[in-house]
């Protein structure tokens, strides 16, 4: 976390339209490499924002800093109006301590490209792990919640299987159920279909579509599937070198990109398909 105090940043966001997620001048560096460059990004409650962009443009880093897997060097991230990377000492923002991070982390869930299911637990046990050990639910409550979610993602019949017995698409659906079992307000999806065989991608995108239409979750998604992004996003953000080069509704961004870099990227992606 940053060492400077953040006198210029509000202790919390207040008012009518407080975004669910707000990056304010967020900078992330690895040595001299600037990965997020004074990034400003707001996501409204219930909004589905898709991040696209070339490799290395910082897409994954946005999600990882939001999940608190990586720290930031400058700026502040707010979630649900409260600072995530920082906390108030009464008069100013100071870097968040572990306790604050744990409190804020409970609002966010994440799914990874390579699922990262716990291999020594069944699908059901994977889903129950957080609710029992973090939220303090009883085994019975956690089981009911998890079984319902596994049903929702179409994995109820495989609930007693270990991940090694499941296909990639099935593992990813369990991973989505596992994240949802924590009842996050914000869900992050980092290329959740990139490691899948083409014929099972639909299983996973189907689940995400269902989430978009049936739940009021705030979602941030990184994907290389432009068709899918166009279908389900409220807004698409094109990243370039750690900044938003251009963003808009899917129709604006895909149908009529204004910036040259966006046009180049989109035509390169179309050729690759």
């Amino acid at each position: 976390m940053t060492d400077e105090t953040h006198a210029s940043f509000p202790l919390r966001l207040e008012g009518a339209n407080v975004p669910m997620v707000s990056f304010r001048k967020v900078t992330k560096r690895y040595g001299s490499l600037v990965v997020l460059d004074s990034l400003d990004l707001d996501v409204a409650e219930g909004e589905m924002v898709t991040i696209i962009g070339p490799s290395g443009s910082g897409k994954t880093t946005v999600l990882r800093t939001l999940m608190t897997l990586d720290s930031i060097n400058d700026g502040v991230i707010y979630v649900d109006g409260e600072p995530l990377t920082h906390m108030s000492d009464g008069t100013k923002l100071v870097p968040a301590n572990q306790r604050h991070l744990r409190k804020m982390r409970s609002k966010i869930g994440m799914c990874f490209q390579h699922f990262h299911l716990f291999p020594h637990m069944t699908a059901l046990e994977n889903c129950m792990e957080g609710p029992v050990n973090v939220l303090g639910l009883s085994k019975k409550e956690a089981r009911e919640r998890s079984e319902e979610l596994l049903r929702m993602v179409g994995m109820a019949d495989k609930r007693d299987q270990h991940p090694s017995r499941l296909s990639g698409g099935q593992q990813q659906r369990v991973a989505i159920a596992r994240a949802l079992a924590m009842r996050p307000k914000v869900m992050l999806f980092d290329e959740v279909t990139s490691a899948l065989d083409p014929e099972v991608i639909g299983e996973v995108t189907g689940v995400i579509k269902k989430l978009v239409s049936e739940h009021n979750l705030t979602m941030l998604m990184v994907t290389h599937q432009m068709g899918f992004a166009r279908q389900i996003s409220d807004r698409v953000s094109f990243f370039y070198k750690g900044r938003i080069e251009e963003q808009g509704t899917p129709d604006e961004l895909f149908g009529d990109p204004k910036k040259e870099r966006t046009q180049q990227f989109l035509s390169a992606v179309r050729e690759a398909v």
Partner: protein
Amino acid sequence: MLNWDWDFTWTILPRLLSATVNTILAAGLGYAIAVVLGLVLALLQRTRSPIFTASVREIIEFVRSTPLVLQVFFVFYVAPQFGITLSPWVAGMLSIGVHYAAYLSEVYRGGIDSVPKGQWEAATSLNLSTTRTYFRIVIPQALPPSLAGMGNYLVGIFKDTPILSVIGVAELMHAANSIGAETYRFLEPYTLVGIIFLAISLPTAALIRAFEGWMRRKLGLT
């Protein structure tokens, strides 16, 4: 050349077998200490403080670079000069336990390092505490790859128990030595000791391999 005396063999066998119980007990107790203390040492090396981690590493290096027999002598004969007097059994279990803990901590460390980073990140994304992440996510996965090494050291500790005879723990070697001193016959007692060690080590090693496979299946890792 060899004048093996069967009658003598049968008379000393019960005495050696009862000493075997002590050998197994010593190996078992020493191993229990090593298994737990080794895990503590492995986890202590992963704290946030680099100075702390470095000192634990130094201690482990020190224990691994000096002979076990010296450590046993030290704890039994030298510690009393600092006001710590221990019985042969306690001194023996302590030194052998600490010695093997240093080795086992390295085994665990390798096992823990073999758990992919993604597992830690998934645990963080579910907001699991560090302690829970270790005990529910990381250690269960670090265990199967550690089992082969743990098994080797179980056999190792068993084979090292004769060292305890030097401070008077009444294990197998100690019994064989006494028989030799009393009867001036060494062939039969030492041969029997060798056979008993073999008869325990070989099946143990096979059992450990079977256990490793069972563990992997039980944890759903294969």
